[in-house]
C-alpha cells in the first residue's frame, strides 16, 4: 500500500546524489519521482511499486530551468532541466518556431492537467513504448545527461533503452537534463503525428516523429522514430537507411511497408491492432514524406 512507501525529499542536488548512491549500495535503490502522472496511476491500479522513492519536487531551483547551453549563444543547443514540464516548454516561443516537432508533441500530452505536471525526463525514464515526449526528443537527437556523486555522463536518447521498460541509467544516477544539440534546432523537415484514441487524454495507438531534410532533392540525415510499434520508442534503422539518398519519386508505399516490417513488429493490445498499427504507420510515413517535400 502507498502508505507504507518510504519517500525521501532532498532539497539540494548534492543530497540527492548522496542518497542515490547510498541506496544503490544497500541494494534497495531509490526511484526518482517527478510529475507522478504515471507513477500515481500505476499505484492506483495496484501495479508493483518501488519500495523507496526520491521526490524531486524540492529540486526545482536546480532542475526546472530551460536554458541555452553552453552559454547564451544563438548557435548552441537547448537544455531542458529534468523537472521541465510540457506546459513550461510550451510557453517558450522558440519551441514553436524551431522545434515544431517538440511543440506539437507537447501540446497533446494528456491534456492541460497532465501537461502541468508531466516532465520530459519523467517521460524518458518511465520508458513507455507509447510515450508522447520521447519520440520527438529522439528524432531531434536529444542527449540524456545523467549525473551521480561520481560525475556526469551523456547518453544519446536512441541508445537509452535497453529493453521493454528498461533504461541504461544506473541506480545511483539521476537524469538532470535533456539536451537538444544545435544542429537539430530549426532543422528542416520536422514532422509529427500522434494517432490516439481521441483528441486529448489519449494514449498513442501509433505515432511517427520524423525529421526528413532534403539535400539536392534527396533525403539526407533523416530520423524516423516509431511510437507504440515496438517494446520501446525506436528509431527505424532500415527505414532510415532506405530513405537516405533517395528522391521522393523513388519511394512507394509498398516499399515503405516492406522496410517498416524489418524494423517493427507491432502487437495487438487493448487499444489497437497490429495490422492497424503497421498499415497506418506506413501511411503516416508516406504522408510525412509528401508534406515535408520542398
Amino acid at each position, binding site marked *: 500500500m*502507498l*502508505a*507504507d*512507501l*518510504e*519517500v525521501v*525529499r532532498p532539497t539540494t542536488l548534492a543530497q540527492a546524489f548522496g542518497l542515490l548512491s547510498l541506496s544503490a549500495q544497500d541494494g534497495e535503490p531509490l526511484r526518482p*519521482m517527478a510529475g*507522478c*502522472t504515471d507513477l*500515481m*496511476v500505476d*499505484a*492506483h*491500479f495496484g501495479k508493483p511499486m518501488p519500495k523507496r*522513492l526520491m*521526490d524531486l*519536487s*524540492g529540486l526545482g531551483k536546480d532542475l526546472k530551468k530551460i536554458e541555452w547551453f553552453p552559454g547564451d549563444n544563438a548557435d548552441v543547443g537547448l537544455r531542458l532541466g529534468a523537472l521541465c514540464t510540457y*506546459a513550461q516548454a*510550451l*510557453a517558450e516561443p522558440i519551441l514553436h518556431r524551431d522545434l515544431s516537432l517538440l511543440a506539437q508533441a507537447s501540446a497533446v500530452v*494528456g*491534456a*492541460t*492537467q*497532465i501537461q*502541468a*505536471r508531466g516532465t520530459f525526463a519523467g517521460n524518458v525514464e518511465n520508458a513507455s513504448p507509447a510515450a508522447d515526449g520521447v519520440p520527438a526528443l529522439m528524432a531531434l537527437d536529444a542527449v540524456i545527461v545523467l549525473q551521480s556523486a561520481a560525475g556526469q555522463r551523456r547518453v544519446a536518447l536512441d541508445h537509452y533503452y535497453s529493453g521493454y521498460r528498461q533504461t541504461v541509467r544506473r541506480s545511483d544516477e539521476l537524469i538532470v537534463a535533456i539536451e537538444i544539440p544545435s544542429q537539430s534546432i530549426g532543422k528542416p523537415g520536422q514532422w509529427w503525428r500522434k494517432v490516439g484514441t481521441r*483528441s*486529448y*487524454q489519449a494514449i498513442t495507438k501509433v505515432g511517427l516523429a520524423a525529421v526528413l531534410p532534403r539535400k539536392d532533392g534527396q533525403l539526407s540525415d533523416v530520423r524516423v522514430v516509431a511510437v507504440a510499434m515496438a517494446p520501446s520508442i525506436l528509431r527505424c534503422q532500415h527505414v532510415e537507411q532506405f530513405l537516405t539518398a533517395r528522391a521522393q519519386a523513388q519511394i512507394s508505399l509498398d516499399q515503405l511497408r516492406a522496410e517498416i516490417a524489418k524494423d517493427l513488429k507491432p502487437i495487438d493490445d487493448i487499444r489497437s491492432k497490429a495490422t492497424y498499427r503497421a498499415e497506418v504507420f506506413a501511411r503516416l510515413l508516406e504522408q510525412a514524406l509528401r508534406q515535408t517535400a520542398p
Partner: protein
Amino acid sequence: MSHSPHSQPPVRPVPAGAVRIACTINGQAREFVAAPMRRLIDVLRDDLGLVGTKEGCGEGECGACSILLDGQPVNSCLIPAIQVQGANLTTIEGLASRDTFNKTVLHPVQQAFLEHGGAQCGICTPGMIVTAAWMVQTGQPAADVPKVLAGNLCRCTGYAHIVTSVQAAVEAGQAAGLTERPAGEA
C-alpha cells in the same frame, strides 16, 4: 465462516513515515500530517473536509478532481501529499468571495455556469470550473476552450453549454481586465 468480526474498530495507525506538510489552501495556511504518498485528493476530502473536489476515476483521466497547484490546474488524484510542501492550492471552495454583508459572491465562472447551463448533475462541475477559472485568469482565448478543458470529462451536457459558459466568462473577464496576461499568449 471461521473469521468472526471484531466488535471494536482497530486504531488507525499513523504510518511510520508520515510527514508534516505545510501549505496554503484557499488563502489560508494549513498544516497536516500524512504518509508522503497519500493522494492529495484524500488529504483534501478526508483529512481537511474539502469535499467539493470530486473523484471520478482515480487515474487522471476525468479531471473531476482538478485543483490549482501554484496557479496551474492539476489532477489532485495524481499528486502525492509530499509534493505540496510549501505549495499554494486553490480548490472549488476557494473561488467564490464574500461581499461586505458576508454574502457569498460567485466567481464569474461560477456565475456563467449558472446562467448558461454549464452544470447538470454537478459532479464534474467543480473540476471544470476550477480549470475554467484558470483559463480566465491567464487570459487564454475563448476559441481554445475545448482544447484547454479536454482533460475534464462530462457525461451529461455533451459539453455545448459548458463551452458557452466558459466562453462567456472568458469574454467577460477580458472585458473587465481581470486577466493576468494579454489574450492569445498561452
